């Protein structure tokens, strides 16, 4: 595999956007993860935050220790001879998910859009091990993909003010589960009882970039047994 040609862009007084790719692709991940590790090593204590997204890394460094020229030199050092990370060791998670209209109000909409039955929508959504591309939006909110084209659907034109924790949704060809109660505009199709973010979870976020995630359909009884909260969408805590 050919190493990506990294482009450096000024983002702020003490931050640079490192642009590795132009398109969202699962093949980006080994490079993104390798770059993250190398940048952490090379910057050491001068690194304040490193925020990966699908195609870029936002690098925030300590301006008391480095000026922009020094920071750029360190980036060049980090990318020199970069080898893609081995994703075989990445974790695979199974997220039990109760797919139901009562907690997934867009299940019907997605079925209608795709011409599939609701059961078929569930089978297709749960039939794929998704790649975690990035965390963002909220603590532990993992952007995963890619969802089959036939299930892709635009965000709701008016986002909901309040979505229950554990809600599973689709936006375009991405899927995600909401770790905490939050506003949101994704098409909801079910709910997972799994805890996604907390100080009791190693690394705080259950899902990390590079991990693979499979949604496993469960029924209501199993959902409750696993500690799920089946209260209606907007009223849940």
């Amino acid at each position: 595999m050919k190493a990506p040609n990294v482009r450096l862009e000024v983002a702020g007084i003490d931050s640079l956007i490192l642009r590795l790719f132009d398109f969202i692709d699962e093949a980006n991940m080994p490079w993104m993860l390798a770059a993250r590790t190398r940048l952490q090593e090379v910057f050491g204590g001068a690194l304040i935050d490193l925020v990966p997204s699908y195609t870029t890394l936002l690098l925030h460094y300590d301006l008391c220790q480095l000026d922009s020229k020094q920071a750029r030199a360190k980036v060049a050092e980090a990318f020199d001879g970069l080898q893609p990370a081995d994703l075989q060791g990445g974790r695979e998670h199974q997220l039990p998910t109760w797919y139901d209209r009562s907690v997934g109000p867009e299940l019907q909409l997605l079925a209608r859009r795709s011409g599939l039955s609701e059961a078929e929508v569930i089978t297709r959504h749960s039939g794929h091990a998704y790649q975690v591309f990035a965390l963002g939006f909220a603590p532990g909110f993992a952007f995963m993909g890619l969802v089959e084209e036939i299930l892709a659907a635009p965000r709701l034109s008016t986002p909901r003010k309040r979505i229950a924790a554990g809600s599973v949704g689709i936006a375009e060809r991405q899927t995600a589960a909401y770790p905490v109660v939050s506003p949101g505009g994704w098409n909801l199709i079910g709910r997972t009882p799994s805890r996604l973010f907390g100080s009791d979870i190693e690394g705080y976020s259950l899902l990390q970039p590079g991990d693979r995630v499979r949604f496993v359909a469960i029924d209501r009884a199993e959902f409750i047994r696993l500690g799920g909260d089946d209260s209606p969408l907007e009223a849940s805590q």
Partner: protein
Amino acid sequence: MNALDGGLRALRSSPFVQLQDGGRFGVRHLGVTQCGALDWIAHRWANWLLGNPLTAAVVEITLGNAEFECSRDATLALTGADLGARLDDQPLTPWRNFAVRKGQRLSFAQPRQGARAYLAAPGGFQAPLVLGSCASMLREGLGGLLGDGRAIAVGDSLGWTAATGATRQMPAEFIPEYQAAPRLQLVLGAQIGDFRGQSLFDAFNSEWLIDQRADRMGIRLNGPQLQCQRGSMISEGIPLGAVQVPPDGQPIILLNDRQTIGGYPRLGALTPQAVARLAQCLPGQTVHLVPTTQDSALLTQRQLLAQWQ
């Protein structure tokens, strides 16, 4: 119970009266926001006046409408906005230390100059660290007095971590004034080339009005419509002070409680000094944007940080 518990009891409060410190770092890759005091300069001075670590926890009081009862004698410090503070009946101007006696009441009315006041106590206010910081973040349920993200509520009791503080005096030349329309320095970003020439001219030669939609997450500006040739973008990490331009052409300046990644094109990002100054602006006030470069801004910022050394 710690001997220093219960120094101040909240009698009146609002969602905009919060425990804040220097913010949460090294966690943005988890989707956790930076948080921390918006006017980091006033925050540092409040701690400096008492000889505290500069980023120790303080109470950030936005717009006023708060009252505390002092549970024991102490020396506190107040900086930032003039929110019509009083100690019992006596007016209390900011940018100084002041002694309080048990039973006295410290109140904040409404803004007379600036928007955010910072109240410091000896050693810093006491709160559990969550992901390295006690900064309050309700949306994420992190930080604050109990670690659950909540703002200071009526009945809450705030303790601090040292018995006494220093009694420093504020160097007069460092006391800011918040009346004049500020010129906010903006480090030009890489996407600047995606904006139309006329829009770039407008961005830096117009008066921008602070919108009603202004909070710790971001502040909207109203003015000429800025046009960007680039449509949708793949989401990417957002630095502090990023000036993003959504399709309506009205910029939003993203502050400490911003989301970690987002997909609107940006003019660049305000300098930290400009972010602090913007934090003292109220809706309806006017600001100007002034372009600068990374290197020039860095020099200014390093000089600014040297003030406290």
